[in-house]
């Protein structure tokens, strides 16, 4: 158990460090002089060569690259991502004001996706090969093949604009979260329900379930008490791994619904080539992925004794 935790933690540190190096390379490779862009962003009319040089040495841009990398890693460790190239304000502040809206969206869509996938998966497995299974699988297939941006514009322009349900411009609060969260959740729900169905059917073939059936337990009891717990590890694993991908889908959905979160902010930053902001978003995604993977490893070790022995 301890070895498993140590190995997961080491993996997490390597991934974070690797991500930090990749983003550093991106920052260094991007065109334009950061000092000049930050000064322009702060609204200075005439920028003298002296001011640029002063800021360059303040930011450490005149130092050799390895020193810059160490400074950058030190900054990341203390939560300093530098200044935005288009507003001149600290990137951490810019992201922090928008992160709650994105977290609300992510939590809401996670809840919807888990709920829908449980329902779809359980219904499909309960009536495997029969009518409920066909309905559930057709629904899953449909939501799997509709890209989120297509679903988003259909919901926004037909349901919201056409029928006047909900609001066109979201303010990022819980009251407007339903449609964006639904748009983000349905594809994940579809893919997770397929995993759940497959592992429920796999769990069903265990010999003790034949014994259980011979002893007269009901189908529902076997499904919920015996099959579901045994089918959980693959289901939990895919949910954990894809939490970070929900965040990855945020740029598209947030842009469609004008959701004031970090995803939409990042898309705007790509338009203005505001690298520190983009790098901040990448680091947030990696951190979330690492935390989710750790949680999945630990959760599976706790619920599945077979994993603990390895």
């Amino acid at each position, binding site marked *: 158990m301890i070895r498993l935790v140590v190995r997961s933690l080491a993996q997490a540190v390597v991934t974070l460090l690797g991500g930090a190096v990749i983003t550093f390379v991106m920052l260094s490779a991007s065109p334009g002089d950061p000092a000049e862009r930050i000064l322009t962003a702060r609204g200075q009319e005439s920028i003298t060569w002296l001011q640029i040089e002063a800021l360059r040495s303040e930011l450490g841009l005149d130092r050799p690259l390895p020193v810059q990398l160490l400074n950058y890693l030190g900054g990341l460790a203390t939560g300093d991502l530098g200044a935005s190239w288009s507003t001149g304000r600290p990137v951490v502040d810019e992201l922090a004001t928008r992160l709650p809206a994105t977290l609300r969206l992510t939590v809401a869509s996670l809840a919807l996706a888990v709920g829908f996938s449980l329902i779809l998966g359980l219904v499909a497995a309960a009536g495997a090969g029969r009518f409920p299974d066909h309905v559930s699988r057709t629904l899953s297939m449909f939501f799997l093949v509709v890209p989120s941006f297509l679903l988003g514009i259909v919901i926004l322009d037909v349901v919201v604009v056409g029928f006047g349900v909900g609001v066109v411009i979201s303010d990022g609060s819980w009251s407007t979260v339903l449609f964006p969260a639904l748009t983000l959740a349905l594809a994940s729900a579809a893919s997770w329900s397929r995993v759940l169905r497959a592992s429920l059917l796999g769990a069903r073939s265990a010999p003790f379930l034949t014994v259980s059936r011979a002893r007269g337990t009901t189908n529902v009891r076997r499904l919920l008490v015996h099959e579901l717990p045994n089918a959980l590890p693959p289901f939990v694993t895919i949910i954990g791994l894809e939490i970070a991908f929900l965040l990855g889908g945020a740029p598209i959905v947030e842009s469609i619904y004008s959701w004031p979160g970090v995803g939409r902010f990042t*898309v705007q930053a790509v338009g203005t*080539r505001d690298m520190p902001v983009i790098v901040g978003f990448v680091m947030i995604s990696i951190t979330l992925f690492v935390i989710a993977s750790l949680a999945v490893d630990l959760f599976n070790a706790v619920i599945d004794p077979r994993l603990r022995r390895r």
Partner: protein
Amino acid sequence: MTNLLTSSPRLDAVTAVATGGRLWRRLLRHGGGRVGVALAFILALAALIGPWLTTDPDVPDYTNKLQPPSGGHLLGTDLAGRDLLARTFAGARMSLGAALLVMAIVTIVGLVVGVVAGSAGGVIDTVLTRVMDVLLGIPGLVLTLAIVGVLGPSFFNLVFAMAVTGWAGLAKVARAHTRGAGQRPDVIAARMAGAGPIRIAFGHVLPGVVSLLVVAATLRLGDTVVALAGLSFLGLGAQPPTAEWGRMLSDARETLSVAPFQIIGPGVALMLTVLASTLIADALRDLDEPENRR
């Protein structure tokens, strides 16, 4: 967007199927697989000969703007009066062509890196595997977005970014297969006959991995098309007046409430692409596990 294919049992399925031979005939005998192959064939046809059957997709005709579907314009026209059927066909060429290009690049890179890591072992293997793990730890779309941020928004840069981010999963497959091949009878025989590690890697291991990776990459074609379209939808890929499915959808947004028919062409095309890809992937998995067959 889902990363299923790099982390799921589907890849193990692919291993068995790709090495099992006569893949094509077995795929056509599977119900869902047959539908998937038929859809893929239709889409390929639309991309290849569609643009020859229709008018120029980029020439505006402002006297004919936002016409609903009719005999003259089967899918209607957009805000600039351009024929949407012609643009959907041109978009097929653009989207599918770009996705194929991305797949070709990631397959080659994944193949080389995976076989090198798997045959070399030691420090080289450890370093390359760590790089793969880090790349797999960043959501593909996020990293793609960041690279487009460095290079600037254009369709070429988007394709390049997707190629840079997409190879890690395939390299892992190639590496696992290469390592497993060390114990294969023909490889042991080659080693006993005095073949060097490089000759074994390229002469005996590589050919088997190629077919495996081509199948694994093909399965991701649907996801790749959607990712390309999604980023173009955000304005970070194809630029006007290029006919590309994601771009067409975002161009249609402003006038969608008065002319909703505009989403039919690119929307249905995107859905059919993912459907074809998913059906074929599911069929391959079923073929590997006969008890799942229905």
